[in-house]
């Protein structure tokens, strides 16, 4: 019988999904998704997941392979096995050593409050401007492509 606690959508490791994958709760992906992913909750991308889709979510925890843009209203975590090819727009980002990110990373105006140059700068901080460091383990090349 149905367990109606919290409606978590789960995409199993051997499953292939194509199209618009929508959810109202959390979304856990261990398989293959092509298209668009949209949820009001957290998207967790497993180590063996392969995603060719744009992701729109409140939070994201990425451990697998993503080709597409991430539009996250909250926090984005890229784990050490993560590989993201696309732009990330998020409020807060955390990148573990070993993660791969090829694309632009935009963090939101939450950075403005902590920045000593808040009055002078544009509030949408880019990785190549002088803003307080975000949590990354490794080196940053201040160009469009960022690899750690």
């Amino acid at each position, binding site marked *: 019988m*149905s367990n109606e606690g919290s409606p978590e*959508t*789960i995409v199993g490791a051997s*499953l292939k999904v194509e199209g618009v994958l929508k*959810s109202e709760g959390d979304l856990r992906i261990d398989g293959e998704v092509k298209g668009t992913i949209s949820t009001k909750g957290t998207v967790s991308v497993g180590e063996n997941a392969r995603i060719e889709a744009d992701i729109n979510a409140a939070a994201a925890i990425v451990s697998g392979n993503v080709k597409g843009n991430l539009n996250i209203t909250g926090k984005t975590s890229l784990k050490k096995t993560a590989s993201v090819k696309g732009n990330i727009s998020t409020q807060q980002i955390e990148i573990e050593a070993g993660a791969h990110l090829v694309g632009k990373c935009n963090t939101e105006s939450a950075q403005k409050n902590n920045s000593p140059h808040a009055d002078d700068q544009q509030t949408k901080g880019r990785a190549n401007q002088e803003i307080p460091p975000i949590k990354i383990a490794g080196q940053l090349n201040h160009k469009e492509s960022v690899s750690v």
Partner: protein
Amino acid sequence: MYFYIYDSSIEEKKEYAHVVARMETEINNLGLTGERTKITSLKKIDQLVLEAIQKKYEPIVIVGRDQSFSEAASCLAKHGQKNTLAFVPIEKKSVVGSLLGVTRENAITILSRRTIKKVLLARANGHYFLSRVSCHAEPPKPAAAPGFLKRIFKKNAQNFFVPRIVIDDDCVIESKINSVDVFPGFSINKLKIKLDKADTQRGWRITKKKAQVEQSVFWPRQALINSPKPLPVWIDGRQISRTPLKVSLTKRQINLIVGPQRRFS
């Protein structure tokens, strides 16, 4: 006035007769008397439910198996009737009973309390269902081998199928799985679709590993499940349809008497 519809399965086991006798004593003690009738080959459950509707009996109490209750609920939903439906399961393990929070021990007590909930019904290929719709691959033909070899080398052959599942007209799933199960998610007004895929069990009897089942879960409002060849579909335990299978939530509601241990709010 109560209207009790007794399932013909009551006569199958002595155990059921004891349950019914105990139940009737409780009914008399609590003053829940009413008209009693039985499903026979001449009088099907649909006719009995319609009879209860015409005579304006309330509630209609089904005494018997899950299937009889599902048929009664389906009949009420088809005719858009608002009569309250109650269930007294006679089986020890009743899927519908556990959904409603009713067991054969506490059914009459719950009936006397009359906690009524409106429940949205889901529909599968034109049939309303309450607990579950399932579809799985057909079992493979047994391998040709002498009997003693079959006992020693027990291989579970793969009984997969590759359905095409369209969810909410938005996304398509096409993968090898063992079974598809659909449950109505009453509290959240969605369906729960569960796809199972088990690894093949291999090995000798002693070293055989337990199959790992990979589950996928989706929560749509409707879904269409198609397979390369028509497969049987079980709706609330009855095999009454075949793929393609269309499942959706409907706006039809029925009133059910439920217990505190029900699986929805």
